[in-house]
């Protein structure tokens, strides 16, 4: 009965598989990956396992990016075909905007900082 109604329901959504559903194993795989990808950065920072702070920073940022991708695939069920690819298009557009906003802000403001900071020192030198 439930499979019949499911088939009818799938036909109702005549766009290709509107929203992909996960399975128990895909959710569990995503969860285990997330736990590992969360635990390692916390351990790296709390134990100070890597001698260089900069290397640690880069490594935990890399873990964050990988974990975001894992969440996108296993929890948000992102794929290139859902909603005829429009969710992917919206995502790509958003990523472009986020990258511009983040890198632009940080870049401009750090330049502003380095260029403005010496001003009071210079006025003191007069």
């Amino acid at each position, binding site marked *: 009965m439930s499979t019949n109604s499911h088939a009818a329901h799938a036909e109702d959504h005549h766009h290709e598989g509107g929203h992909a559903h996960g399975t128990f194993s895909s959710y569990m795989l*995503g969860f285990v990956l997330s736990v590992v990808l969360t635990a390692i950065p*916390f351990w790296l920072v709390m134990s100070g396992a890597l001698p260089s702070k900069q290397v640690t920073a880069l490594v935990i940022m890399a*873990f964050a990016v990988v974990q975001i991708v894992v969440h996108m695939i296993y929890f948000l069920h992102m794929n290139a075909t859902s909603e005829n690819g429009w969710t992917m298009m919206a995502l790509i557009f958003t990523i472009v905007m986020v990258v511009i906003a983040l890198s632009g802000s940080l870049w401009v403001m750090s330049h502003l900082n380095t260029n403005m900071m010496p001003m009071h020192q210079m006025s003191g030198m007069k």
Partner: protein
Amino acid sequence: MTVAVNPSQTGEPVFYLADEHPHPEGWSTSLGFWIYLMSDCLIFAILFATFGVLGGNYAAGPAPKDLFDLDLVAVNTSMLLLSSITYGFAMLTMQQNKVAQTQVWLAITGLFGLAFIGIELTEFAHMIHEGATPQRSAFLSAFFTLVGTHGLHVSCGLIWLVTLMVQVGKFGLIEANRRRLMCLSMFWHFLDVVWIGVFTFVYLLGVLR
């Protein structure tokens, strides 16, 4: 979307309806909700950028190292992660039309979410008690805005969750409720994705600084 077409009335063919066909109710909801989430993502991007710019301006006040307790943040992160997987189980049981089990998983998700908010509010209260208020420095203003906005989203998600539990209790797993549960699922997992950014860039990198 149904428009009465009567070409015989004017005698001229109507072209603009050629591609129109009736859509079932809610057929575009998941795409629309996804676009809402993407716009929400931009809000968080701007708050992250603000934190990135101001995060180092302590105004001779407390620095992340003095304030953040990573053990607590780890517990908090696991609460949100566990709530994500339990929501996933709620979706799986929903697909199998098991109303009672879906309700149980939703309730467990809500408890984990409540624990997350509780721990976060405790942390905020502790910081404010120590004098690390949003007014203290630019770093703390940016911190409270970013983490507070995320917390506000989770709180709204909890209200939504309770509302849907009442809906499911009253009407069962009807098509509309399935659609709503799917939207909340996207919202909830999206908040977990934002939290990955928060614990990495605010807490871990803050303590590293």
